[in-house]
């Protein structure tokens, strides 16, 4: 069972390589051909992408073999880490996607308040959390854009 677990990473890389190969082969051929057949193959826009995708696929297979031999150990998550990771990723994703739809102002205010409260919950009094959120907002929405002369949307 542990050997199978060790192979998962290699399997994911092989699948990734396969996806890359699919993308590489879907690139259309050059509109203007060059010289002989093999020169034309080397000069194709898809040539190096196919080579790189093939390398990734081969390396994925190598990783599967290494996993079966026990030479590839997967990363371990600490207790509580997956949940915290999920929350962090969701928070960051919501912030960045929020900017994409609503502009910088309100998503930054919301992100600042939520992150100041969530990451400091039970560690700091509420007024410190508010100050931290205020600092994030002032620096993010006013000081930094002013410094670089950027007009935020």
């Amino acid at each position, binding site marked *: 069972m542990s050997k199978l677990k060790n192979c998962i*990473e290699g399997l994911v890389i092989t699948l*990734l390589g396969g996806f*890359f190969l699919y993308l*590489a082969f*879907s*690139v*259309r051929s*050059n*509109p*203007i051909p*060059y*010289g*002989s057949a093999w*020169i034309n193959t*080397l*000069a194709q*826009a*898809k*040539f*190096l*992408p196919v080579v*790189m*995708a093939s*390398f*990734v696929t081969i*390396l*994925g297979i190598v*990783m599967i073999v*290494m996993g079966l031999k026990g030479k590839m150990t997967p*990363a371990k998550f*600490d207790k509580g*880490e997956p949940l*915290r*990771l999920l929350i*962090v*990723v969701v928070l*960051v994703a919501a*912030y*960045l*996607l929020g*900017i*994409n739809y609503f502009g*910088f102002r309100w998503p*930054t205010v919301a*992100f*600042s308040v939520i*992150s*100041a409260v969530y*990451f*400091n919950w039970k*560690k700091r009094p509420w007024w410190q959390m508010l100050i*931290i959120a205020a600092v*994030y907002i002032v*620096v*993010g929405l006013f000081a930094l*854009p002013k410094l*670089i*002369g*950027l007009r*935020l949307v």
Partner: protein
Amino acid sequence: MASIVSEWLHFGPSLVSLVSQPMVWVYLIAGVLLGYIIGVIPGLGATMGMALCLGIIFRLPQAQGLALLIGILVSSMASGGITASLANIPGTPAAAATVMDGFPMAKKGKGREACGYAYVSSCIGTVTAMILVFFIQPFISAVALKFGNWETFLFCLFGVILCGSLVGGNPVRGWVSAFTGMFISFCGAEQIQSVVRYNFGTAKLLNGVNSTVAIIALFGLGEVIMTLSRPNDIRVQSQSGFPIIDLKVFKRNIKNIFRSMLAGLWVGFIPGIGESAACWFSYEIARKSEKNGKDFGTGVPEGIIAAEVANNASSVGALIPSMALGIPGSGSTAVFIAALFLIGFHPGPLLLTDSPGILCSLTILFILAAIVMIGAGYVLTRFAIKFLTIDENVLMPIIVIFCAIGSYASTYTRFSLILLLVFGVVGYLMKKFGYPVPPMLLGLLVGGTMDSALRRAVIQYSNNPVEMITRPFGLAIMAFLIIMTIFSIRTTNSTKKASKDVAKVLAEAGAEDPQAE
């Protein structure tokens, strides 16, 4: 020869021009202060610090942008050793070997001496290496001018393969990282016949993936997600104060300094290995060469000096291939190259021809940054403990906001925020599963050049491909790169062995493994 000498003749005018601009000083000092804090805080580093500034520097005049970047690079490399000495954690991976003697010295109650040796050695390493590079670089650039498309392709290919194999613990993961980076760099309309490659039907990817956004995400956002999902409490085990700088010790170590500088410069010159290998390489050489070699690891200044001189010399040495060929020697120089592109320079064989005086400007700014760092480091080390104990839960969310603003500022499109998110998650996954990020970055930066160079070479020699492969210059480069590969594998093996020995010693002593950083 005349063109080589003419590059050095810019020194005087460049010096006057830079020193007389107050804003250059302002940005240099700001960079040094920022870099100091970034270097002291574990987990952050020169690469991340510079990556976060990419969104700012391209809006600055060239000299000011360079001053900010170089200030961050020099001081963050120098201050990493302070954390290594005071908290037994390298502030940056490049300071890993400093832990060996810095921390035992601090435990003996000589923390202030350890900090003094660490950051002054760093500054000496920067200055001496930069002076040497100033004289070497024009010759290397003159040779690089002879490079054709085939040679450029070969150099890029070897750089990426070498980087993938030598950075990180597992070459297979390194190569996956490098080849994935190259594959991503091919996205968008290519340069020869404008064939569009896997843009997923969106016009936003026609120009490919923006490397600035990718850098900010991989080094900035990825690190933030990593840190926030696994909080670490730093235990500071000694007191900081104004550092004590004993010049007699440095005088006694002139040979050690010179040897470590050359070792660091050599490791930096080899594309992709980076500063963290340089410190171990130099530490091991010093341990074998110094009379008190058997005392290394017990808190001797020779060990700190060897490690710190080398890691700074290495970051300077990494500039050689970066400037001559546009191929970064380390993760931090990869960001440095991206920044040079942003502020209007074109690192590569034509850099010195297109931008006369750039080498002089870089040399002057590196030396000035080191001098400013000696003064600033003296004052700031008094407060090092305060920086060290900054709560990551407070610091990291604002870095997310910086990343978002930096990405947006570099492209002016909201699409960059989507890219930021995607690459941020990729950066986290890579760090978590042990995939080194620098090979991916190198692949991203040189992939397009490599593709164009190969295809141009093939088209150029379509009637006689054998002539392309047997070009004397190409053959010489192949031979040189194969020799360099063998040397660098040997160098990396010896540094890995040295760091393992150290980890073993530390494990026996019940301390933390500095490699864990």
